[in-house]
């Protein structure tokens, strides 16, 4: 192990030469064991000031150590202290291996440190290198095989790796979504995912506990980004995608029945995350993906009930979004939710037409009210309330709402009195302010609001409202196709329609603010 001649000479010539330097050194290390001291220089670059150098060095380290792993040039077994290296009577070969193993450990430490670097590229490179090491170590274990009987996962490395990794990924100060999305590639691997999930859980517990349950938006956002990227396969048999591949059969080993474990880890991770107080934007984000990507992957979705009922009680858009999760629990998991309809009824206010999740809301309400076993008073209350609210709705919402109301009346013939009741004129007995649908006297009312909307400025809305003038047809109208209709799409319908003649205003104008029915000119002047 001859000391390298130019080991401590810094190459200060130019910026480009570091590449050459590193390249030649790695080449030499791999070529001849004589030059193995060059590794110090390469590792030194990892602590360089310049991002580019670090990245290049990281890649070089990755190359070198992977090659060494492949050759079996790293010491296997319990590693003796470096100081003892000279004293023990070992062969040169063994000494070399022990030496290299120590360098490897150094390198890993440095890489873990680099994960906290400010430049994204450095972080990314370090991440990739570390994952590569984990893979290599799994293939060529550094422990004695006979000592470990169960599934050999490079735990030491990996646990420390994931923990620091998670630590960094779930930074409380910085938005790490870029790096997390890079990391997603590794989250496809089942073993990686499993360990990440457990370390995330620990991390959340620790961080949130430390912060006394206060809201930490950046941290929670990071957690959310990471969590939403984790997908447990839908079937246990699909778990066969590993970062660490080994020759022996794991299926026989007791460790390996991880699907349930997987699900449990996933569930615990989410539940822990949802246990703490969240900012309202986070609520929305989670609720949007909840029913599609979280609930199906949990082993017991009913555990979400606390979270969902809390969200449902918040009000506004969050309540609307919580409906979806609740619906799945009620529908698929036999959850009993007292006063569900009452609550739903009280959710209806003018803002439902303006929120972003309007389509989803109407889709759900349509499902909730599709049961023909609902009492007439309840349906009537909903119909009347929708009708009253329609007086403030934009045309796109009205095009959903009017067919929807008609469908409700079709489903519940006893509500037909709302549009057909030959009797003397009266006040509207409906009480808008009443929270309880049973008490609001909706069945005694009539849908004058729809009558009003027959004078709506948009022809399609007016036509839809005209339908109550005659007995409704048997066939229900399909509302799913208008759910996502935007105002611009509605505009385009008229813009694209072919018209033979274009009627014109026959009073020709002479000035901008002068027309037979001038309103603008009354209040505004040109100057």
């Amino acid at each position, binding site marked *: 192990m001859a000391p390298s001649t130019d080991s401590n000479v810094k190459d200060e010539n130019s910026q480009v030469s570091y590449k050459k330097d590193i390249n030649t050194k790695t080449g030499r290390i791999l070529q001849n064991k004589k030059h193995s001291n060059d590794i110090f220089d390469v590792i030194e670059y990892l602590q360089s000031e310049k991002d580019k150098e670090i990245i290049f060095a990281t890649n070089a380290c990755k190359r070198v150590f992977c090659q060494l792993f492949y050759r079996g040039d790293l010491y296997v077994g319990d590693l003796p202290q470096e100081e003892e290296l000279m004293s023990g009577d070992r062969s040169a070969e063994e000494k070399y291996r022990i030496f290299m193993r120590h360098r490897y450990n150094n390198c890993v430490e440095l890489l873990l440190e680099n994960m906290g670097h400010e430049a994204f590229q450095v972080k990314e490179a370090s991440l990739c290198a570390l994952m590569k090491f984990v893979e290599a170590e799994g293939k060529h274990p550094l422990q004695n095989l006979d000592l470990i009987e169960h599934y050999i996962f490079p735990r030491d490395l990996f646990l420390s790796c994931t923990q620091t990794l998670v630590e960094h990924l779930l930074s409380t100060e910085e938005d790490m979504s870029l790096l997390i999305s890079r990391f997603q590639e590794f989250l496809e691997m089942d073993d990686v995912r499993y360990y990440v999930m457990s370390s995330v859980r620990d991390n959340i517990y620790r961080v949130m506990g430390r912060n006394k349950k206060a809201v930490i938006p950046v941290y929670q956002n990071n957690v959310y980004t990471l969590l939403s990227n984790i997908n447990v396969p839908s079937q246990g048999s699909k778990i066969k995608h590993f970062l660490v591949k080994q020759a022996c059969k794991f299926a026989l080993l007791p460790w390996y029945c991880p699907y349930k474990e997987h699900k449990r880890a996933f569930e615990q991770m989410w539940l822990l995350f949802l246990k703490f107080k969240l900012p309202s934007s986070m609520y929305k984000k989670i609720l949007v993906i909840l029913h599609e990507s979280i609930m199906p992957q949990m082993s017991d979705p009913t555990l979400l009930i606390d979270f969902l009922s809390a969200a449902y009680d918040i009000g506004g858009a969050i309540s609307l979004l919580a409906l979806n999760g609740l619906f799945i629990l009620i529908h698929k998991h036999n959850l009993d939710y007292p006063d569900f309809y009452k609550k739903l009824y009280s959710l209806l206010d003018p803002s439902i037409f303006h929120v972003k999740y309007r389509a989803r809301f109407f889709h759900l309400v349509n499902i909730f009210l599709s049961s023909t076993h609902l009492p007439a008073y309840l349906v009537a209350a909903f119909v009347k309330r929708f009708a009253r609210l329609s*007086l403030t709705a934009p045309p796109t919402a009205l095009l959903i709402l009017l067919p929807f109301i008609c469908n409700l009346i079709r489903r519940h013939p006893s509500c037909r009195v709302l549009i057909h009741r030959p009797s003397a*004129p009266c006040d509207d007995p409906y009480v808008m302010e009443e929270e309880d649908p049973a008490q609001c006297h909706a069945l005694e009312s009539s849908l004058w609001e729809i009558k009003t909307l027959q004078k709506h400025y948009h022809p399609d809305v007016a036509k839809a409202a005209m339908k109550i003038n005659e007995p409704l047809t048997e066939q229900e109208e399909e509302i799913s196709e208008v759910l996502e209709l935007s105002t*611009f799409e509605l505009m385009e319908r008229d813009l694209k329609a072919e018209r033979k003649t274009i009627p*014109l205003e*026959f009073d020709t*104008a002479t000035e901008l603010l002068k027309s037979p029915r001038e*309103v603008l000119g009354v209040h505004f*002047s040109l100057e």
Partner: protein
Amino acid sequence: INKTIIVHQLVFCAVPLPAAGGDHHPISKNPFEVKINRKKFDVLGRKSKHDVGLPGVSRSRAIQKRKDTLLKEFRLKDKNNTFIDRRFGEYDSKLTPEEKILQRFTLERQRTQDRKDMYNLNEEEELTHYGQSLAEMEKMTDVIDSDSDSEEKGLLSAELTATHFGGGGGLLRKKSAGDDEEEEHKPRSRQELIEELIIKSKQEKRERQTQKEEAQELTEKLDQEWKSIQNLLAHKTPKAERTDETDKPKLDQYDMMVRELGFEMKAQPSEKLKSAEELAREERQRLQTLEADRLKRMMGDAEEDAVQTNTHISADDMNDGFILDGDDRKTLAYKDGKWNIEGEEEEKEDEDGDEEGGEEEEEEDDEDDAEGEEDDEEGEDDDEDDADEDHCDLQSDEGSEDEDGQGAEEEQVCAEEPPAVSEEQKKAAQEAAKAELPYTFPAPESYSDLKQLLQGHGSEQQRLILDRTLKCNHPSLSAGNKAKLQKLFGFLLEYVGDLATQNPPDLRTVSALIPQICGLCQMFPEAACKAVQTLLSDSGHSMEETLEVKGRAPMPDLDMLVLLKITALLFPSSDFRHPVTTPAFLFLSQALTRCAVVSLEDVCKGLVLCCLALEYVSLSQRIFPELLNFLLGLLHLTVSDKHNMGYTVVSPFRRQGKSCDLLVLKDPNVSHSWNRKPISLQTAHRLPAQSPVERDHYRLSLIDSCLDLVKRCTWLYKDLPSYAHIFQPIRALLLKHLPDLHREILDAIPEKPSQHAPLVFKKKKPIPLKLFTPKIVLDYGKKRGNTKEEKERERLKHKYKREFKGALREIRKDTRFLAREKLSDVMSRDAERKRKVKELYGSLATQEGEWKALKRKNRK
């Protein structure tokens, strides 16, 4: 194998002559044979073929025919071989056996003779073509072959066709009847006949050709002779022609007169000059029909049958294609091919004030000058002219009085007729001449062209430029102008948008350009519609995109507001569905619900949008929920105390937030110093920096307008059934926070909703009971055979049916006949057998008897 043995000793096939009704006559006389069919009714004028029949005769004839044909076939049915005797005259009963033998012999001899000829090559035979010898033809005595020859070729004689297609039978018969005695008992074969025919036709052709040749020769000869005497006649020809001429008119005069009378322009009654009263009435009627049309469209039922009413024809319209847009626009009129000077005079008087008029008056000084000089002067005066126009002027300098549209226009506009001019006017004119405009403008090809054309001029001048551009490029003047002006409309809208967004916005000019925009729109509704639609769609799309990305969009800019206003001026917003205004409505709705209100400018823009929305619905009284929401939101901005409110505000307003106090007055006492005046539209673009008091004044103006709009809304919607519910939030807000601000509105909104009858379905017309009186159709007898084809079809069907029945009957008769024949065969066979058996028995008996007798004899 069906072997036919044909006797070939004699070539000619003997075809027996059919005995065509030879025995008809004697039988028809026999009264016992006649069967008279009894008629049930005697119909006058109907001829019946079947009142008299000869059943016996026809039956026997039928049987005979069957015997001849069917029976023969039957007899030969399963026999393979047939025997056809084709010897000459074998079946001819008229020939005596001796004659027959003689004939056969001669024929035989002839044939052997012919055969020898076949190999006799030495004998010279003349080759012919069309019966003429080829040798002769080769001498080329050239004859001009007229094309009538080919025509003749096409003619087919009845005989010829009959021989070609109809078989020889008929022909033979005819021939045998017509020909002389010798041939009568010497029937000819088909081949003979055809040969004969060919010879005949050739002969005919030859004759024709020779005739033609003769005619040709004769004409040539005549020509020659004519030439020789032509000189003698030369000087006399004109006279002859004259006589011809005089002849002709005599013949045609009457005809000509008739024709002339037919084509003569009818005296058309000139239009009576209308009195002012009549004009007013007409105008009123026109407006009434237009209004009725509009109402129909508003109801939405007359969408399809809406006819493009050529809406804008003024009573003064000379129907010359020009459109009168305003008082200040020059109209051109023609009278008797010259341009109408009086109209121009009036115009000049109208324009007295502005520089244009003055300029013209200046020109009037040198009224007696030529027009070219005038132009020249103009060219000198005008320092703003661009090169193109200079060039134009130069052209007219050179005196090239080109009559293209622009040139003509130029002349017309600057034609002269001097009204009395005062000195002051002259001076003013001289000053104005500096900023004088040229009279013709090319239609701008691109937006930058238009911008270049209009920029740097005052608003009135811009209007004038545009006006002149429109006139110079009127579609009636040149074919390409239509497309140019259609494009111009789009450019104008763009220009208007630019004017509205520049800083400060030049809305005066926009306003000044309105008549021209309207005029263009009336000229090209489709193009205008497309242009406005594109703008609406573009800005709608961009708003949608920003909404998707950011969640909120900024308020539309002033150009969009102006465009919406112009849309309302150009297109009827009261229509139930309109290709432009319906999207415009949606755009308004989108802007009023999704655009964030974060500054006073936004409030102002929102208020403009509200005004527009109200304008859009003011005639049709349609409900516009977004408008009311927005007004409520605006009022909400004035409320300082946001707690405990009895209403909910919807998007784009929030209950609480940083821009929720936009309209809260900083100093409550400022209202004493405020007086009402219209808000400047320019403030919607950018609010100038103001002192707090001014800002408060501005706020007060906005609030005032807002309340006024609310008032207008209450008035507009007071007939709606949900009137009280619609205004309930506004009422709550006003009552709670601004109780004494606008008492009128509060009074207008009732506290308790008025009573309404509950909804019922529309009464349907009861379905009438089924009636049992017979249905009488008057046009009987027209059931079938209406058209020629149908009649033909019916006829054919009937014929087919008859033929089918007849055929069935014939077949039945055939089978019956055959059965009978078979039976008689069997009978005869049996009888024969019986007879033979009897014979045998007899012979045996005699044998036995003889034998016995012999035995007896021997015994004896």
